[in-house]
């Protein structure tokens, strides 16, 4: 088997809460291969948000190693991590996290600005990404002129536009009704199927996790189960 896209060894993360130390992760080992579609599940307090932050290179572990795409990222500085996030990771958040004053197109362009691309190329690629999620006719709309499902599609387009190694989705349907949730999950499945996009999704909903091929469950800062399944 080739080098996994994500290789995590003995990952721990501790937070100082006043005098106490909270151990959110207590030595996690995990490998995720290219083209996998993984759901990370667990009840609240299980450490899945911490896991998500570490996998997304938004945070660094207290101890342990993390290789992303063959590069050790666990000891990187803030700015190095920012560049890794820019190149390797496309985030989709529960609350969409779009810039309210910017148009859909500009929101999707944003990661390309930090990638240092010229204005014309940015525009072309952002437009392409929006079309690929079916929002080609909504490019000049601002987030408050879009429905929840449309906003999340803009966020997905933004995650896709840099052609990242991983799309990291944090409760992507948490703010959507069930119909829209299904619609968004179909977008993810389609990305996975047609492009072989690696997707890591954090969720606590079983029917959402059911869309993934593999479900990793966290409990008390440790992986309690890790099983393959046939995607719904």
């Amino acid at each position: 088997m080739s080098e996994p896209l994500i290789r995590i060894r003995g990952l721990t993360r501790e937070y100082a809460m006043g005098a106490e130390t909270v151990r959110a992760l207590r030595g996690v080992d995990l490998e995720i291969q290219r083209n996998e579609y993984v759901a990370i599940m667990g009840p609240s307090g299980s450490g899945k948000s911490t896991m998500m932050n570490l996998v997304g290179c938004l945070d660094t572990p207290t101890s342990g190693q993390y290789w992303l795409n063959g590069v050790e990222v666990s000891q990187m500085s803030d700015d190095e991590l920012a560049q890794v996030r820019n190149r390797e990771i496309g985030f989709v958040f529960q609350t969409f996290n779009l810039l309210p004053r910017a148009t859909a197109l500009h929101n999707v362009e944003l990661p390309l600005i930090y990638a240092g691309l010229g204005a014309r190329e940015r525009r072309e690629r952002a437009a392409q990404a929006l079309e690929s999620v079916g929002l080609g006719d909504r490019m000049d709309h601002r987030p408050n002129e879009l429905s929840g499902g449309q906003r999340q599609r803009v966020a997905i387009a933004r995650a896709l536009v840099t052609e990242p190694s991983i799309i990291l989705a944090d409760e992507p349907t948490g703010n959507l009704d069930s119909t829209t949730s299904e619609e968004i999950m179909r977008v993810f499945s389609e990305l996975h199927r047609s492009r072989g996009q690696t997707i890591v999704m954090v969720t606590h909903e079983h029917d959402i996790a059911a869309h993934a091929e593999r479900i990793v469950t966290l409990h008390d800062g440790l992986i309690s189960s890790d099983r393959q399944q046939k995607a719904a």
Partner: protein
Amino acid sequence: MSFLEAVRLAFGMIRAQKLKSFFSLLGAFVGVMFLIGVVSIVKGMDHWVRNDFAGKLFGVNTFSVLQRPRVQMSEMSVEERRELRRRPRLREQDYDAIRELMDGRALVANQSIDLVHVYHGGRRSRNVRVMGVSENYFTIRNVNIARGRAFTSHEVALGLNVAVVGQDLVDRFFSGVDPIGQEVRAGDFVFRIIGVAERQGRVFGESQDKFLIAPYTSPVKRLVNPHKIVDIIIVKTPDLPSMYQAMADVEALMRSRRHLRPGQPNNFHIETADDVLSTWAQISRVMYMALPMLVGISLVVGGIVIMNIMLMAVAERTREIGIRKALGARRRDIMRQFLVEAATLSTTGAGLGIVAGLGLARLVDALTPLPAGVSVPWIFVGVLLGIGVGVVFGVLPARKAAQLDPIAALRFE
């Protein structure tokens, strides 16, 4: 993120929050407006004092002998003031002696002046500057005659009641009538108008055209000074070196006429345009010294306002910063974004300040005789100050933004 990108973003922000932006650029606006306005006005005044004021009042290569200085800047003790008042007045004989001494080398005139009411046909013009002068006065002081003529040495020798008047008297007494040959009364004496001077305009809002000039030998002498006394003796030479020579000669002559021993100070005053120019240099130096303080204070206040607005903006936009960081913005990208925003605000303020300052100068130019001198270097200084204020006072908020933790920032509501 490129610099241009950041500037475009900053303008977007300013557009989105017009009122807040307006307040934050007010400080830079006021500071730079003062800077440009005051510099332009002082420069204009400088030009005016050097060329018009000094030139008109004193003339080129011209010096005056007076009882005491007309302009006195420095503090004087009571004794000094008393000494000045006790000095003997200049006499007509002094004028005659100086004229004889300067024979052929320079033009010499005398002048005495007082404010007198002037009447014609039942109308009155109050506080007219009535002057008794000798014939060379017109040449030395560049008083050009618009109609009629000036009086001659012959008329001065005879002491005839002839007069050259300013436009204000013509306007008051002779609208639609040819003033030449008309008679006016000044005090108890009647003068026949033989000439009208060109309009001089206003200086500091005061008309320079309300005058009547008559030969100092005419009865005007009863109006302006005690018997045989003159106010000023004016000497104009062809060039500067001969002026200094003439000054030395006249000083020696006056000292000998006054029987002053070597070592005794002069009990008369010799005045040149330099005196006024040095006085003016002092004034403008004070203004240039006060200016940086004035500008500095408003820029610092403006900077603090910008800093606070930017701190507020960082707090308000914590989530945006989190999003940008999650998407790959490095610290320096965020830092640059906020620094450029602060600098754009203050530079916009400075730009508007430059426009307003130039407007101010233009206004002064239109309302006073001072020409407003706009100088390009100072406009650059204004722009640089604007950028500087934004960058200096933007550092703290920008650093705060750059150091935000992306996870906490993303969670921020």
